[in-house]
């Protein structure tokens, strides 16, 4: 086939292609006074207003001297962070406009027909949503610092300035990459704006936390927040690249956050054998068969979830070692734990401790069920990380106390055998399995199973979790709770009791 004389050469780099898109979108944004006017105000007027506020507040606080000086000292970096943050809030608006707005105005399809990759398109649009607000933010920071230097002669330490710049950049990236994920679930700017609260609320909470830390002077924690934000950035960018592709964009002709459809898909995944449920086009429900669930579905699900199970096991091993490490570092005073001659009513007195569940089969059972369910919910909002942390805490405590016990001269193996093993050999596997499936729910948002989109992958993971939870975890937790409430105390008293 002869190639036309007008056929272009596409030997350019991905960045060059992305920048073609970025340049056009930036020009488009610069033509829109609704974007430009607020950004100009936030860049050129707001910082000077903040200079005035900072100076006035500082002078006011310093009048009272003493310990108040620390407030004056930390006001400037705090306001520096605020000056940097306001302009980047526009990145969310621009991102929603550039991703879902284009889809709504039907101008995206001509772009999709161009010889560019999904990644180049994504990169071009990401940059266009980031550059203007970030540029405005950096300019605002410079303006604010110039004003402060002239007015107070104050300049921030390099570390503080780096923290604010990195925080601002990472937060902008979170908002833009989050907006892409939100955009992928909608076809209208209106619906996207409503869903954007999933970005705005966590960001608002984060800013509050950062503000407290700035006044508290916890620089180290802020570095950890920056690191955490960068991890979230990576996760969201990866999610965005998976969701922002031609297939996903064009397959959604309307907002399909339809409860009926969601329920139908969920039930289809829940009721079907795992391998059938994992097929992309499978949404039909299957006949409910309890025997099949126990003889086929659950073994298959456990086999196919080897990776999350391994991750949970490794995390728990790590948590236990961390507990041991802290026990070695902070040994308890001799005699602080008395295990010899436990009174026979030792377990009957436990319910008096308020934050612990009622020491009965039902009390322990419902507490453990709540914990696994909480792990699943937290897993959704944290890509599975919090589900893992929730289980790591008690294991770290186990490691801590077991080692402390050994330091206090008791046999740790006897301690484990008495206090943990009888119910733990049932409860721990149940919690590990529950957490592994909760972890998969969070991970499904970042990495849906092959052939499924993010929404389908999420529903499939949720359905798998529910199946395992209802038919395996709950029965195991019930047995474990019965053992813990009735058998464990007998064993403990038999080994340690005396009075």
């Amino acid at each position: 086939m002869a190639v036309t004389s007008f056929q272009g050469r596409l030997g350019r780099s991905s960045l060059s292609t992305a920048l073609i898109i970025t340049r056009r979108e930036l020009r488009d944004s610069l033509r829109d006074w609704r974007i430009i006017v607020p950004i100009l105000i936030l860049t050129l007027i707001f910082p000077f207003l903040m200079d005035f506020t900072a100076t006035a507040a500082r002078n006011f606080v310093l009048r009272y001297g003493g310990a108040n000086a620390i407030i004056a000292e930390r006001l400037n970096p705090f306001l520096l962070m605020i000056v940097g943050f306001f302009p980047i809030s526009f990145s969310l608006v621009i991102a929603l406009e550039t991703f879902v707005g284009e889809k709504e105005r039907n101008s995206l399809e001509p772009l999709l027909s161009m010889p560019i990759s999904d990644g180049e398109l994504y990169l071009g649009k990401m940059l266009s949503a980031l550059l203007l607000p970030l540029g405005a933010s950096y300019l605002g920071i410079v303006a604010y610092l110039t004003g402060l230097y002239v007015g107070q002669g104050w300049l921030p330490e390099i570390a503080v300035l780096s923290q604010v710049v990195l925080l601002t950049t990472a937060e902008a990236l979170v908002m833009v990459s989050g907006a892409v994920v939100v955009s992928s679930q909608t076809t209208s700017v209106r619906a996207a704006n409503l869903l954007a609260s999933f970005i705005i609320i966590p960001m608002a909470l984060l800013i509050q936390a950062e503000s407290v830390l700035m006044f508290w002077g916890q620089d180290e924690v802020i570095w950890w927040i920056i690191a955490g934000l960068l991890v979230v950035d990576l996760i969201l960018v990866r999610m965005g690249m998976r969701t922002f592709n031609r297939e996903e964009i064009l397959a959604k002709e309307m907002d399909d956050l339809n409860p009926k459809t969601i329920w139908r898909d969920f039930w289809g995944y829940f009721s079907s054998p795992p391998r059938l449920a994992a097929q992309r086009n499978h949404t039909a429900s299957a006949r409910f068969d309890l025997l099949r669930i126990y003889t086929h579905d659950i073994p298959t699900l456990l086999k196919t979830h080897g990776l999350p199970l391994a991750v949970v096991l490794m995390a728990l091993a790590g948590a236990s070692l961390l507990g041991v490490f802290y026990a070695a570092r902070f040994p308890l005073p001799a005699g602080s734990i008395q295990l010899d001659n436990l009174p026979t009513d030792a377990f009957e007195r436990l319910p008096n401790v308020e934050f612990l569940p009622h020491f009965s089969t039902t009390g322990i059972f419902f507490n453990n069920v709540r914990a696994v369910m909480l792990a699943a919910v937290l897993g959704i909002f944290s890509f599975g990380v919090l589900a893992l942390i929730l289980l790591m805490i008690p294991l770290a405590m186990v490691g801590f106390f077991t080692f402390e016990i050994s330091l206090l001269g008791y046999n740790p193996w006897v301690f484990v055998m008495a206090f943990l093993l009888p119910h733990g050999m049932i409860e721990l596997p149940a919690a590990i399995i529950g957490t592994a499936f909760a972890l998969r729910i969070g991970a499904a948002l970042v990495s849906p199973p092959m052939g499924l989109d993010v929404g389908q992958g999420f529903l499939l993971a949720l359905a798998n979790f529910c199946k395992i939870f209802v038919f395996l975890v709950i029965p195991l937790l019930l047995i474990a709770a019965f053992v813990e409430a009735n058998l464990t105390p007998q064993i403990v008293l038999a080994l340690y009791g005396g009075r």
Partner: protein
Amino acid sequence: MIETAGLTKQFGDFTAVDGIHLAVREGEVLALLGPNGAGKTTTVRMLASILKPTGGWARIAGYDTVRDAKVVRQLVGLLTEFPGLYLRMRALDYLDFFGQLQGLSRAQRSERSEYLLRRFELWDALDKRAGEYSKGMRQKLALVRAMLHDPQALFLDEPTSAMDPHSAKLVRDAILELRRDRRTVILCTHNLTEAELLADRIAIIRRGRILALGTPAELKARLLGDPVLELRLAGPLDGLLADLQGLVTIEDHGDTWLRYRTAEPDRINPRLVQRLAERGAPVVTLSEVPRSLEDVYLRIVNE
């Protein structure tokens, strides 16, 4: 130029395109006709390498639409259902942007943009932003965008919708010119007259399947039967009908006129006229009764 085999696209449990087999030659215009939701747009999106088939394959000029997606997107031009312009941009900036994405040089972009904008009478509106254009002008600019890189194959979704008759003719002429230049065109349209006028072949598609494929004449013959001819005489038909029964199938008649079908008009009509003349019944007119593509379309779609 365009080949597909078992081309299928499923969205969840909905089958939008169901096993389409097509072969479109270089320089051929194929019209895709079908009701809304028939699968025309999804088919075109797969051919333009925007969507990946869930079954079967498609090739453009020998390039696989999945494996060689970038090359295919360079070889084809797509006019989408909606113009989808950037309303704050002017025509030249707009075309320059898409030309850059197509990898055209500055000179090529400039030359080609000017040629096409003049060709579609948009050159005088250079100082206007696309948002100030009429619907027809927007549609024409979208068509210019699709033709900018002089593609080997063009997929045009409703190219003349929202256009005034003059603009629609400009576009139709352009399509005919493309055919003369050996460009392959797939035309999705609801305008049956336009399809009949422009297309070499027509594919009628419903629920993702091609129900009929052929030239307009072939489709009419296949679906509406043998051509119907109308004959008018100078005098009454008295006694002549029985004489003609063996020769043709009479559909209807009046005092001085007659409608009949024949599978072989070239052979039968001269004999019929001769027989009538022998019986002293001179023929005034003999013509084929026009049968519209609409009849064919409705018949297929309603079945």
